[in-house]
């Protein structure tokens, strides 16, 4: 039978909702809080995505999806007509320069139209884009390199080598007036110098069309265009850790949804139990269980309608504030300001929150719906165990007996309150016992190289053009300020080095002064320095290509190492293929050949060089050898590059005073360095992060635990309010009743503390074993962190029953007695 009664159900739902103002307030706050957390996680997640994209674009210097050079008008029209084309921008490339002082980051001289300028991150801090022929716009870093004040109208002379194919080779110069400047795209591949269109036309240019496409899909280029590069910007970048952060975010969402579920569930559970006789009454007068469920659902919907928008609003704010902080601690730190404002955040958060609310209300709804009218009046959660009828005496006995009324609930409280204790104890036993001295010890005060080296970026192989990571000039500059007693370089071959058998082999060339810190495991180093001995030292840190440590090589063995460069060419024409050409060449026509030298060595020693100078991490699963740098240079025909320079001095005062200079010098010259101070900072960040994660997790879990406890106490008291009235009538004073309740509360808390500390004690040994591999941390057993939670639990264990009972006791005994009669 289908009766139109939804109106009366709605009326019942809204009317009974109005009745419980405080409950509504708490429920709305809980829903808002859950939504807030969900929204902030989503906005951080989306900001992550935006920032990754931003980082990718910035690293490539351009936001566009790709570019095409030298389009004819016809081809350009075709490009515009293509549905995948969203926007295009013109770039007239005049020239480039990569000599002094732009050897680290080249200078690109181009005319950029409005779109292209935006996509190349040219956002003027002051001034205007070039209009007159001799006007120029530069980034602040260029101004600094050239030693020019950021003052509009200043004269600037720039060198460039023309891009035009038929232009005369050689460096030209042009003089401009500064029309504007902008913040450097610090991680971009080059500096942009924006000239006027008139200048470009006069000087000659390559016409490049930048294209932003609607999709990531590579689409077919206009016919006859061979340099089509859609998708080529950003193609090689792979912002690693992307998947990890997705998993982390999913995990966060689950934890939040779970805690939100527990909070909201608890509130509805309490309110349903409170109103149970009301639902019983509704059933008596003919409201079906299904309709009662609907009443609960409508109520939750109304509460969500208020709570979710509040949560989204606050969450967006919190997200906007936390995103930069979180991004800063990741590899995306350079683009930490990018923040996503896509409406998807709100849609997804609202949906997610609503689902959480519905799931949370379903069980309380079922309880309300399942109650029989007669039971409803007697509902007191009492499921007295008929076997448990032993004599009990005193308030203690009563409290204990009361707790066994609802065993499931009691166990839940125990578990959820002991979990944060265990997590905090374990987490802090880790975080508090990390030792910097064991984490980092360096043989040298300063290690200086470029940022790639410290970011563990693998250098490009097989390129004769690889530059030293740190130049001779830089070393001279540093040593001229502070005459370091120890100043040595580590080198490696620019191309591919492998044994005759095909095992990759990293050959490290060390300056003589660095051999002091090379530990000899077996054999003797002296043959290395003996002219034509062709001796080599085997680094025991090396592994073979299966990752197994090197066991098959020993002192006295002969090894042949091939030092070679690989050339990729088109088998049809024999022409060498560069990256761009490689993309347009069918695979069957791609050929490669190796050229180089091979040297026979005899292993004279097995060594363990200082960790500081070893670059094994750059070459996984490779043999590792050590040679004096001079020998390596000779054997490779000089094709080596310096990847690291170390400085040290026995004079600690000198080391301390040099720190600031080296830091400043590195920053100004595109270098990076590491020292005790920088490592300590890294270590501290790491330590703090673990502490923060542990405490946050612990707070969330504690809140859940405490809520479960409050729920247990609250339902325990409200459902027994009649019983308490009876007890008072037969002479149990308020004081005695509170004592029973407080004893119950203490049982919950002490039980949880005992359970938690018990579990922690049991888990301590396996936990220590888990981190055996990390030698910088030895978790120590300590009950101190737990005692902080214990104090809070004990206070709440006393306060909550006390408060709740006081509220219940406000109604007179007579009133409470009458309820059930």
């Amino acid at each position, binding site marked *: 039978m289908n009766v139109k009664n939804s109106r009366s159900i709605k009326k019942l739902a809204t009317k009974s909702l109005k009745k419980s103002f405080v409950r509504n307030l708490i429920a709305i706050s809980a829903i808002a809080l859950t939504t807030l957390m969900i929204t902030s996680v989503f906005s951080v997640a989306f900001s992550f995505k935006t920032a990754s994209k931003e980082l990718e674009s910035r690293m490539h210097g351009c936001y566009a999806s790709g570019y095409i050079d030298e389009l004819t008008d016809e081809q350009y029209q075709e490009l515009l007509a293509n549905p995948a084309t969203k926007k295009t921008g013109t770039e007239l490339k005049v020239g480039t320069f990569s000599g002094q002082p732009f050897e680290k980051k080249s200078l690109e001289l181009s005319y950029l139209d409005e779109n292209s300028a935006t996509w190349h991150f040219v956002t003027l801090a002051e001034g205007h884009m070039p209009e007159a022929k001799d006007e120029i716009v530069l980034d602040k870093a260029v101004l600094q390199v050239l030693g020019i004040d950021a003052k509009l109208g200043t004269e600037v002379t720039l060198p460039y080598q023309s891009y035009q194919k038929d232009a005369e080779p050689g460096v030209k110069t042009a003089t401009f007036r500064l029309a504007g400047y902008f913040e450097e795209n610090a991680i971009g591949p080059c500096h942009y110098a924006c000239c006027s269109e008139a200048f470009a036309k006069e000087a000659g240019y390559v016409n490049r069309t930048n294209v932003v496409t609607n999709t990531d899909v590579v689409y077919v280029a206009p016919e006859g265009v061979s340099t089509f590069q859609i998708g080529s910007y950003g193609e090689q970048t792979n912002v690693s850790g992307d998947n990890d952060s997705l998993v982390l975010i999913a995990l966060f969402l689950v934890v939040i949804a779970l805690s939100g579920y527990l909070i909201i569930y608890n509130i509805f559970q309490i309110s349903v139990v409170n109103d149970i006789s009301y639902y019983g009454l509704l059933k008596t007068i003919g409201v079906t269980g299904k309709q009662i469920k609907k009443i609960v659902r409508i109520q939750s919907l109304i509460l969500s309608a208020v709570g979710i928008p509040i949560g989204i609003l606050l969450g967006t704010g919190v997200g906007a504030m936390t995103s930069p902080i979180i991004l800063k601690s990741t590899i995306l730190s350079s683009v930490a300001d990018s923040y996503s404002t896509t409406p998807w955040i709100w849609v997804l958060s609202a949906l997610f929150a609503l689902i959480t609310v519905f799931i949370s209300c379903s069980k309380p709804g079922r309880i309300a719906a399942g109650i029989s009218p007669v039971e409803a009046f007697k509902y*007191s959660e*009492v499921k*007295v165990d*008929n076997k448990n*009828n*032993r*004599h*009990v*005496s*005193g308030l203690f006995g*009563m409290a204990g*007996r*009361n707790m066994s*009324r609802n065993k499931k609930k009691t166990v839940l409280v125990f578990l959820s309150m002991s979990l944060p204790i265990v997590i905090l104890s374990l987490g802090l036993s880790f975080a508090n016992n990390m030792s910097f001295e064991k984490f980092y010890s360096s043989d040298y005060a300063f290690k200086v190289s470029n940022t790639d080296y410290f970011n563990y970026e693998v250098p490009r192989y097989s390129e004769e053009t690889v530059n030293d990571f740190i130049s001779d000039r830089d070393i001279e500059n540093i040593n001229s300020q502070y005459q370091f007693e120890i100043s040595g370089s580590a080198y490696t071959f620019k191309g591919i080095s492998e044994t005759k058998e095909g095992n990759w082999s990293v050959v490290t060339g060390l300056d003589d002064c660095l051999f002091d810190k090379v530990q000899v495991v077996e054999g003797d180093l002296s043959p290395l320095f003996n002219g034509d001995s062709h001796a080599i030292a085997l680094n025991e840190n090396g592994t073979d290509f299966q990752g197994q440590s090197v066991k098959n090589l020993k002192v006295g063995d002969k090894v042949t190492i091939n030092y070679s460069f690989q050339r990729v060419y088109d088998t049809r024409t024999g022409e060498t293929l560069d990256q761009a050409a490689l993309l347009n060449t069918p695979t069957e026509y791609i050929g490669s050949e190796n050229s180089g030298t091979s040297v026979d060595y005899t292993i004279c020693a097995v060594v363990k060089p200082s960790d500081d100078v070893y670059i094994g991490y750059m070459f996984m699963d490779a043999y590792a050898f050590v040679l004096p740098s001079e020998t390596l240079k000779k054997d490779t025909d000089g094709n080596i590059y310096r990847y690291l320079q170390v400085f040290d001095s026995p004079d600690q005062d000198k080391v301390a005073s040099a720190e600031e200079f080296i830091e400043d010098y590195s920053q100004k010259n595109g270098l990076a360095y590491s020292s005790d101070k920088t490592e300590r900072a890294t270590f501290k960040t790491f330590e703090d992060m673990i502490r923060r994660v542990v405490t946050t997790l612990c707070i969330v879990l504690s809140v859940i635990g405490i809520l479960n406890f409050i729920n247990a106490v609250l339902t325990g008291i409200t459902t027994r309010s009649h*019983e308490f009235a*009876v*007890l*008072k*009538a*037969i*002479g*149990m*004073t*308020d*004081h*005695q009743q509170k004592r029973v309740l407080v004893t119950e509360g203490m049982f919950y808390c002490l039980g949880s503390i005992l359970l938690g500390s018990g579990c922690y004690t049991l888990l301590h040994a396996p936990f220590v074993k888990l981190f055996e591999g990390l030698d910088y941390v030895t978790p120590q057993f300590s009950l101190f962190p737990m005692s902080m939670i214990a104090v809070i639990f004990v206070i709440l264990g006393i306060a909550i029953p006390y408060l709740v009972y006081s509220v219940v006791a406000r109604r*007179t*005994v*007579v009133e409470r*007695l009458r309820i*059930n*009669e």
Partner: protein
Amino acid sequence: MEILKATGLKKTYGKGDTEVHALRGVDLSVNKGEFLAIVGTSGSGKSTLLNMLGGLDQPDEGTVLIDGNNLQKMKDEKITIFRRRKIGFIFQAFNLVPVLNVYDNITLPIELDGKKPDQKFIEELLTILGLKEKTKALPNQLSGGQQQRVAIARALASKPAIILADEPTGNLDSKTGLDVLGLLKTTCRKYDQTLIMITHNDDIAQTADRIIRIEDGHIVTR
């Protein structure tokens, strides 16, 4: 000897339109060992009177003296303690503590007072009330009549000065009701207890030493 004396009891619930005058000036005196039945229609004020005599509710005006103690001069906590020593309550709905067995329910008021129950006296009560075999049973394992007998034992256990019963047979069928009432009367006689009982049942009221009828907040017959 006068064990209870109530003078000028007045009680009004609510305000304005919803004002209900539950008691409009009640004077009552009960002697030790007396069995008093209070009768009256629903809403006449008899439960209010009984609650006031037991200190569960406070009158707006007037005083209640039990065994010479003025209930209006005591604080709530003190009244509660006084109640467990001097007053035994028996309710229509039995109101036993569900988690405690028969024996623990009966001795609860004594233990709340921090005293040792008089073992011999409790045994005697259990025998008289026919609960000897049930001492370890929990309330939900007992019939209604048995539960009310436990409630009677509980009311008597601390040897109070006065027993207040609010329709003790109201939830029982008439045969069981009469049995329980018989036991209640017997035990009260045996221990020289004063019994004040509300009832709807005229037959039961007739067995009392004295009947008072309350109508509209006044005592109309004595």
